[in-house]
């Protein structure tokens, strides 16, 4: 793909790296908020090429990782019910709830289907009027607009057998929570480009000013990330803390007004628990009261869920940037993609999985999982 290739050009990358090396005079800790950026950083070895003074801290930006256990358990409960077709994006199927995952529900007879768009789930509902069709609506501001539009469509079309289990989260309150933590050592942020392409950058100047951190809106290809790091480091070295859009080809300052209008119509802001972190005020969306008929939590009355978490898992600290995945005692031994203790090891965008998949060569305490040959 020519377009993508251009954003992976080794020569241009070298020039950006040279510039970063020439700019840095002191240690700096930057957090990339988005799991897609984490994945790209590790997959392309960007962290190995940066000056040792620039530390990249992996933030809580993997939507799969931060979906609370309680919500996963609600999904498992609903998906297990007779007459339900439970639709989800693929990478949610392997995330463990309390003792099982959606793959396991399917192996026990549950009708769990992978879809590529929430509109596919709506179509399944139209084709199966005698079944209850539920879509698992998770993710950040990136996936929320199409999910909102689908609920809006369901009501407009009168599809009464369609509902959504909603656990959407918002980035700015998470940044605020991270910066408010006394143990926080993040000095600058690479903000998630996809999120800003929807929401714009209006939520960031106040955060940058209050916490005196540069926030650079950054894309996902290797050159995007290097450019984001370059701009963040330049600001830090100069003692600046402004919002800078390094992803202007996709992000307009006002974002996408149509998508934002859809979000405002269908959702309302709510406090939301982040898996491994805790409740962050105003950090999530739930369906607005007028769409209650399409709220799966309401329709299926999944109450009294008892969750159980293993004590060994420290992914909360990883999600907060307080611990690198390989610094966890369980990393690569008790906890591997085959036997994950936490969602950060399950999701392909999770920091622990990225380290396990791509960085075992450099990490001494990560025993290689037995992978016998077929």
């Amino acid at each position: 793909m020519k377009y993508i290739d251009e954003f992976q050009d080794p020569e241009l990358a070298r020039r950006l790296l040279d510039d970063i090396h020439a700019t840095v005079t002191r240690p700096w800790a930057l957090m990339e908020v988005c799991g897609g950026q984490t994945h790209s950083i590790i997959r392309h070895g960007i962290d190995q090429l940066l000056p040792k003074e620039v530390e990249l801290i992996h933030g809580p930006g993997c939507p799969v990782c931060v979906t609370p256990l309680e919500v996963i358990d609600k999904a498992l409960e609903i998906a297990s019910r007779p007459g339900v077709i439970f639709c989800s994006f693929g990478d949610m199927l392997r995330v463990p709830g309390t003792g099982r995952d959606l793959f396991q529900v399917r192996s026990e007879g549950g009708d769990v289907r992978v879809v590529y768009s929430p509109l596919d789930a709506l179509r399944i509902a139209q084709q199966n009027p005698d079944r209850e069709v539920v879509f698992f609506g998770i993710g950040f501001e990136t996936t929320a607009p199409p999910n909102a539009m689908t609920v809006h469509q369901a009501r407009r079309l009168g599809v009464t057998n369609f509902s959504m289990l909603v656990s959407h989260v918002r980035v700015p309150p998470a940044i605020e929570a991270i910066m408010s933590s006394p143990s926080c050592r993040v000095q600058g942020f690479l903000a998630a480009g996809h999120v800003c392409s929807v929401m714009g950058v209006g939520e960031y100047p106040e955060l940058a000013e209050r916490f005196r951190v540069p926030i650079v809106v950054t894309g996902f290809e290797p050159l995007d990330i290097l450019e984001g790091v370059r701009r963040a480091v330049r600001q830090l070295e100069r003692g600046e803390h402004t919002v800078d859009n390094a992803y202007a080809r996709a992000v307009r300052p006002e974002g996408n007004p149509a998508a934002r209008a859809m979000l405002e119509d269908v959702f309302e802001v709510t406090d939301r628990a982040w898996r491994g972190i805790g409740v962050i005020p105003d950090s999530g969306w739930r369906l607005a009261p007028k769409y209650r008929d399409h709220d799966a939590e309401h329709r299926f009355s999944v109450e009294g869920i008892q969750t159980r978490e293993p004590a060994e898992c420290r992914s909360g600290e990883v999600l907060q940037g307080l611990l690198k995945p390989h610094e966890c005692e369980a990393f690569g031994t008790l906890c591997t993609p085959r036997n994950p203790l936490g969602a950060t090891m399950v999701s392909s965008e999770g920091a622990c999985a990225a380290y396990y998949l791509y960085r075992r060569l450099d990490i001494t305490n990560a025993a290689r999982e037995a992978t016998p040959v077929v």
Partner: protein
Amino acid sequence: MSDTTDLRGPALDVEAWTCPAPLRDRPRVVMGHGGGGALSAELVQQIFAPAFGGEVLAQMGDAAALTLGGARLAFSTDSFVVRPLFFPGGSIGDLAVNGTVNDLAMSGARAAYLSCGFILEEGVELDVVSRVAEALGAAARTAGVEVATGDTKVVEAGHGDGIFINTAGIGLIPPGVDLRPGRVVAGDVVIVSGAIGVHGVAIMSVREGLEFGVEIESDCAALGGLVDAMLAVTPDLHVLRDPTRGGLAAALNEIAAASGAGVVVRERDVPVPAAVANACAILGLDPMYVANEGKLVAFVPREHADAVLEAMRAHPLGADSVIIGEAVAEHPGLVVARTGLGGTRVVDLPLGEQLPRIC
């Protein structure tokens, strides 16, 4: 909930943060057990191999190498459950021949005879059965193999997926040919016979109703002729593998793990067609893990590499052959990619199936 420390309190209590429950026991089969990755391997290692025993099975090759009446035989079986039955570039009938023929070819044998078992679901149209059978017969003729025996079973409606096919094949291993991971040594050159990820993306495009702007046809093909051309240059190939389920990453990992060698791949040399790269970028998949049906990976002694590469490129199924890396003494059992930017990463054995990511 134990993970809901309220941030409105005075300070975060790091010690209180915990995360998800372990998923160590899977009491039932999940789709990943058939994905050609770590879960498939565990199924074989923990259930089938202990139950069956036997020295030949312990070789764990794509085909078993047998000695019978003085002849060295290769023997292999494979089952085909692909959906849809017909896809751009082929059908389940082509796959049922080529899959088994290629498993034999990877041991150096030219397939001679196939068995063919059809499991039909009640209600499937006879016209569809006929078209699949004709495709299977045509593929066998192209591959130069004879369907010598067969079987048919019918299951009740709802208990199958239209048509399942099992084939088994048998062929002779030429004298002097000894293909197995144990022969891989540091310095061996790794060659791939052409573009990767094509079959998997072609199947996804029709099965999931996804359109990627360009029609992508499966690379489904029988590789016996290509292997013959390589062996004609030298019988001293060390190992061959067709990177089907689990893709190039699984094939390289299997060889690394079984040989104890390390493998280094130069990522920018791995041939990924633009259409496959686009599709994978959209879905969040890695082309290295996407299935192929008409490609092979060869570990060749360095002194023969140029001649073998030339012979491969002279064959229609190997025209785009390219060297992608080498076997090394460092990091035994691991496959490592040198990234385009100059970093390194481990290329792991996939767990089960690849899952398209959320965004």
